[in-house]
């Protein structure tokens, strides 16, 4: 990393924010929540990998932590949905 690279990441994050705000003012229907969450995921991934240095982490344990958290949340929400969707 270098100063320039950090600033570049920041500019990309701001750009993605602009994109997501613009998308929200278009009426994309059901796609819109998927799209805004996808952009949020991309932004978060940039922060995790580059600002929080996960890309440069050597230890496997640390690289696995966020996937584990996401998996746990996905399971909790997913199994709860087996109730919500079919009541």
């Amino acid at each position: 990393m270098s100063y320039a690279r950090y600033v570049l990441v920041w500019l990309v994050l701001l750009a993605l924010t602009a994109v997501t705000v613009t998308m929200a003012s278009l009426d994309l229907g059901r796609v819109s929540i998927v799209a805004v969450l996808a952009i949020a995921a991309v932004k978060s991934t940039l922060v995790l990998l580059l600002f929080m240095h996960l890309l440069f982490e050597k230890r496997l344990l640390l690289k696995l932590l966020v996937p584990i958290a996401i998996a746990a949340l996905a399971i909790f929400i997913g199994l709860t949905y087996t109730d919500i969707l079919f009541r």
Partner: protein
Amino acid sequence: MESPEHSTGARIGMWLFLLSEILLFGGLFLLYATYRWKHPGDFHAASQELSRLDGTLNTAILLTSSLTMALSIFTLSRERSARSTRRASLFLGATILMGCAFLVVKGFEWAAKFRHGLYPSSPVLLARPPGEILYFGLYFAMTGLHALHVIVGLCVLSTMLALLLRGSVGPERVAPVENAGLYWHLVDIIWIFLFPLFYLIS
């Protein structure tokens, strides 16, 4: 000079703690996912009452604070000099200021809601459809909990700044600042998700 093993251990510990924070907010995301699925129209209607400008501004503020946080640590780990410590302190101070700015904007937002009679259990809110009551309940709960974490983060960062100026942390001992930075970035990431969920419902 602290040992690499010890600083790795501290970093592992901080990441594990961050994991627990993700799961803490996760419970609220579960509630949000359920209630939005149940009341899509009400959620959309209620979200119109939020200021997209304020939300976008706050997003930009936090993203920038993440940049200055990362630059602060980068400066410390790159170069060992009094100048780099000073520059790192400036970046860290900027981070703190932006965190305060975030809270100010949030404070104005909440005040505006209260002025319109929109707060948990208010008569105005209770007259609305259930989906809108839930939207605002989740709005205050989630942004409130997030703001609490911002405040804690600011306390931690201020402590780091004081230690940095005193010389207890610095280029010789970056790990505590790095770990404080990890916490701050997580606070940013949570907001990255809160923003579209509450402000960008179309």
